[in-house]
């Protein structure tokens, strides 16, 4: 038997609409996949970047002349802080390495991320930055940002 159920006009409209939307979506996807669209996008991006730079530079100049700290000053300070944090992290790793060498003279540290043995690691941790320490006690709090 053929399909007895006939679709209602509303369903027909809905189906036609969905077909049209699907075709439109495919057409748009074809448009954006062209190299020429990529070039257009690249130019548009450069224009936006250019405008943003002009605006930001002008605003920074105003703030500088008013003797106020601007975004660039905050960024510079934050960058210095980041570099200090890098040095601190490296220092901590070195301390941990030395500590491990002292505690277990039979084993030599091979650097971070190594395949260390469970006995050398266990629940050991470093002294700060939220790491847990060995020797039973847990010092310091969880790391916080």
């Amino acid at each position, binding site marked *: 038997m053929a399909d007895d159920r006939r679709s209602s006009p*509303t369903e027909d409209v809905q189906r036609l609409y969905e077909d049209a*939307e699907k075709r*439109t*979506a495919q057409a*748009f*996807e074809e448009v*954006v*996949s*062209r*190299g020429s*669209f*990529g*070039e257009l*996008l*690249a*130019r548009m*991006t*450069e224009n*936006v*970047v*250019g405008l*943003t*730079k002009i605006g930001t530079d002008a605003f920074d100049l105003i703030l500088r002349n008013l003797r106020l700290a601007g*975004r660039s000053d*905050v*960024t*510079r300070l*934050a*960058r210095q*802080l*980041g570099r200090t*944090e*890098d040095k601190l*992290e490296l220092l901590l*790793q070195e301390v941990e390495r030395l500590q491990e060498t002292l505690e277990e003279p039979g084993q030599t540290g091979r650097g*971070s*991320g*190594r*395949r*260390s*043995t*469970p006995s050398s*690691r*266990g*629940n*050991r*941790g470093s002294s700060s*930055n*939220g*790491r*847990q320490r060995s020797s039973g006690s847990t010092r310091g709090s*969880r*790391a*916080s*940002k």
Partner: protein
Amino acid sequence: MNPVEQLARTPRAAVEFANILLTQNDAAVGLSPKDPVWTHRKTTLYRYRSENRKHQVPVLLVFALINRPDIFDLRPGNSFVEFLLSEGFDVFLIDWGYPEEEDSEMGLEEYVCDELHWGIREVLRASGQDEVTLLGWCIGGTLSLIYAGWQPDNAVRNMALLTTPVDTHGSLYGTWVAPDSFDVDYVADGYKAIPGQAIDWANKLMKPVTNYWTTYRRLWEGVLAGQARRAAFQPMARWVADNPPFPARAYRDWITSMYKENSLVRGRMRLRRRRVDLSKVTQSLLVVTAGADHIAPPQGTKPLLGLVASEDVTCIDRPGGHIGLMAGSKAREEIWPDIVQWLAQRS
């Protein structure tokens, strides 16, 4: 529903529709309890709380530098993290945070050779184990792969790479940014941190009608029919709209090495003067691709299978989109069990 009934419901549906959109940013995401284990700059390593750790090898989740890793733990009942924990895994997450202009010097080298490298070290410390499983998604998968190729003597036992771009030749994104007409240096110099909204806009532009119209049309129809799933729509919409900036140097590195030079598959990528050699990747490897993925299409991921030295390689190819595959409503039944089974056999 007849037209008269539809008309009568419209005012109420309009209010409901507006309410769903206007309150989506208040949706709770990433609710599974976790503790920070280690922080450095904007990066934080978290460990999820669990009293059911059966498997020895911990799992480190690595997400992309765009969007937030909350997608791993979208909402209770539909959380991959929750699923992993319930299956007895010790789960860690490396969160890249919200980089700002001061992080403009953070490049791929810093993310792979420092943040990820140190993060793995801290996972080993916290878990007390020798080895770790890396589970990377999107760029996070590429970072994991780069790490394994850059540091062959590593503690990574297994790698699961989900919808990961590897060979970008012929990809849509490559069509846009690989030609010389796209001056990545100008963009990276102009913005110290590329606005996340710009990246999101570009991603949505790949399927403009679907992303800017069909999603909302379907929501409207659901609301009108009284079947809208607010609890499912809002967390995903919030996650999609939550776009951290992309540090300028990392953006420059990513576009140049992955799209302009395609250097990962060509074996020419170098980090800190050391070559990223995929032929030295020997870990057990799970590669998951999504058939309708327009950001990391399967043909851009599968070349990896012929480049690595791993003897234990599994490839799962499923229908679905870049994100929908892992975070869609069917993921819990259709893909998570397969991933967990693969992990369980190797953990």
